[in-house]
């Protein structure tokens, strides 16, 4: 057998109960991630990206109607663990999360240093002084001056608060960090800075990232591989190099064409229409309504086809 991947996800599914019926937010998601690598999960608003993060970290709301699939973390299947085992061995210990809009959800009445130290106290049972030393180290890694440990969130700029949120996810030294839209609320310059920090952390701390975002251009800065999500499903996985050169799935191609480029004569395009409702997703290809390449076959659900080392869920790639 080849070298064990850090993470392998198979058929991960998370549905929610609502008054109108089940919402299929995550529906058979799959992808892999190597050690010290970053995978970008790309998709439009509402396609289930944050739900995927919740499913991975088992941070589930009450109204779950279906939650299954397999997730192998360094060879160990974690979906089958009971909650207590999961809590003691996985969340924060081996995998942590920077939630969407994390910088706006820091506790306003606690010093940011104490907040970053807290997961160490809670999950590794170390003393507060020791945890603060570790927090100070993390501040240095993410580029926040150490004397900011004693400040409150409102005293920091958006970019600094986001770095603090990242430090908090890193303090327990997990091998894998899930980042949900880490820069979408920030300016371009701050975004560029945060991405430089993430790139550096990948090397310095030997950590892997799952970067969840709708921003294809920014994501290309960090990605080693890409998984494209559409209406709760993965429609393409690829190594970053070939993806950014030429994506395969019609949806990925349209996403790429919508990025505005400087001094380009071509105007950016846009994807007409909207993603389907996850309440009653269409039975055939979920992208068919908006797809310029649609043909008769597309009224049936396409399987996942292997194209060299890439995978595409689209009938055009049936061989």
């Amino acid at each position, binding site marked *: 057998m080849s070298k064990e991947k850090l993470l392998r996800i198979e058929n991960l599914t998370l549905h929610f109960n609502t008054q109108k019926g089940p919402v299929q937010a995550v529906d058979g998601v799959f992808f892999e991630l190597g050690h010290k690598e970053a995978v970008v999960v790309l998709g*439009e*608003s*509402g396609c289930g990206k944050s739900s995927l993060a919740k499913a991975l970290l088992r941070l589930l709301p009450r109204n779950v109607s279906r939650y299954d699939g397999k997730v192998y973390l360094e060879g160990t299947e974690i979906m089958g663990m009971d909650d207590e085992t999961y809590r003691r061995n996985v969340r924060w210990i081996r995998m942590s999360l920077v939630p969407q809009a994390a910088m706006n959800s820091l506790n306003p009445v606690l010093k940011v240093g104490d907040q970053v130290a807290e997961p160490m106290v809670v999950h590794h049972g170390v003393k507060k002084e020791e945890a603060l030393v570790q927090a100070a180290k993390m501040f240095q890694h993410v580029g926040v001056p150490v004397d900011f440990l004693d400040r409150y969130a409102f005293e920091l*700029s*958006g*970019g*600094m608060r986001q770095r603090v949120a990242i430090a908090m996810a890193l303090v327990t030294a997990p091998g894998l960090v899930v980042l949900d839209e880490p820069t979408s609320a920030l*300016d*371009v*310059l*701050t*975004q*560029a*800075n945060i*991405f*430089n920090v993430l790139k550096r952390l990948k090397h310095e701390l030997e950590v892997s990232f799952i970067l969840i975002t*709708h*921003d*294809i*251009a*920014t*994501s*290309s*800065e960090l*990605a080693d591989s890409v998984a494209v999500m559409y209406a709760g499903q993965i429609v393409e996985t690829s190594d*970053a*190099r070939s993806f*950014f*050169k030429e994506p395969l799935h019609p949806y990925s191609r*349209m*996403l*790429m064409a*919508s*990025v*505005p*480029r*400087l*001094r380009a004569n071509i*105007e*950016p*395009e*846009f*994807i*007409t229409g*909207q993603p389907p409702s996850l309440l009653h997703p269409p039975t055939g290809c979920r992208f068919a309504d908006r797809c310029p390449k649609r043909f008769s076959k597309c009224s049936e659900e396409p399987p996942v086809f292997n194209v060299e080392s890439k995978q595409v869920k689209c009938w055009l790639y049936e061989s």
Partner: protein
Amino acid sequence: MTTTTNEKKTLVEVKHLVKYFPVRAGLLQRTVAHVQAVDDVSFNIKEGETVGMVGESGCGKTTIGRTMLRLVEPTSGEVIVDGKDVFKMRAPQLKEMRRNMQIIFQDPYASLDPRMPIGESVMEGLNIHKMGTKQERYELMLKTLKKVGLEEYHSRRYPHEFSGGQRQRIGIARALALQPKFIVCDEPVSALDVSIQSQVLNILKDLQKEFGLTYLFIAHNLSVVEHISDRVAVMYLGKMVELATREDLYREPLHPYTRALMSAIPIPDPSIKRERIILKGDVPSPLNPPKGCRFHTRCPIAVSQCSQEEPQFKEVKPNHWVACWLAE
């Protein structure tokens, strides 16, 4: 291109606009300091033109837009629209002016009343200004919704039934219904997915062509304004630091801050190796902006003069204005 814009008549003139927000503290709520949100900004916009305005959050872009419409009272300066000073207007004139000058907000979620069917929202302004008969207002609402790609049945639905892009189009319809001449577009696509941004931009462009609209288009990213602007202004910490035609600004940015903004734009192609100018630190507090050139604390090419004297905003090339000691 430049010659034709030159021949056009100036619609909006902003002269030495200043807006300081008082910071109050203590029991007596005494003013202890001022946030210098906008500090001596001058520019004009010609009829049918789009001026893009770019800068980091907190640099004063939104305040400029809102002060121009007098949604925020200015500290000093003048805004002349169609020959009349907006800041000297009294209630009846102001009401008339507000019909002619509209604003589209950044957040398509917060700017619509959740309890009002969107058709009503679009008609609200028409009702306030008592434009035409009830029937005429209804028809104008439908016509405006069509312009942004929505149908009659949409008019009876509530905001939560729409996606972000659709809500932003409703916001545009709301502004457009009053048939204004000038629209401040305050980050109208920043909250939207990249995949639908250009749809909203295209609608704004088509409407401009059809109705001869004039826009001030605010954004934090230079790549967003490129395709829509005739001229582009760059703001830093309450000051305008560069203003040029789109062609000149993107071909030859002269201010180091503009160059940094330009280099920070991500390109979805990891094979292109670029040198990104990463600025040190954060934007300083507008409570206490740096002396001299406000940018000198982060400027990669600053010389000693920069920390002592403030550079003037000067026309260093035809129609290309810059405030930088090294750009002369």
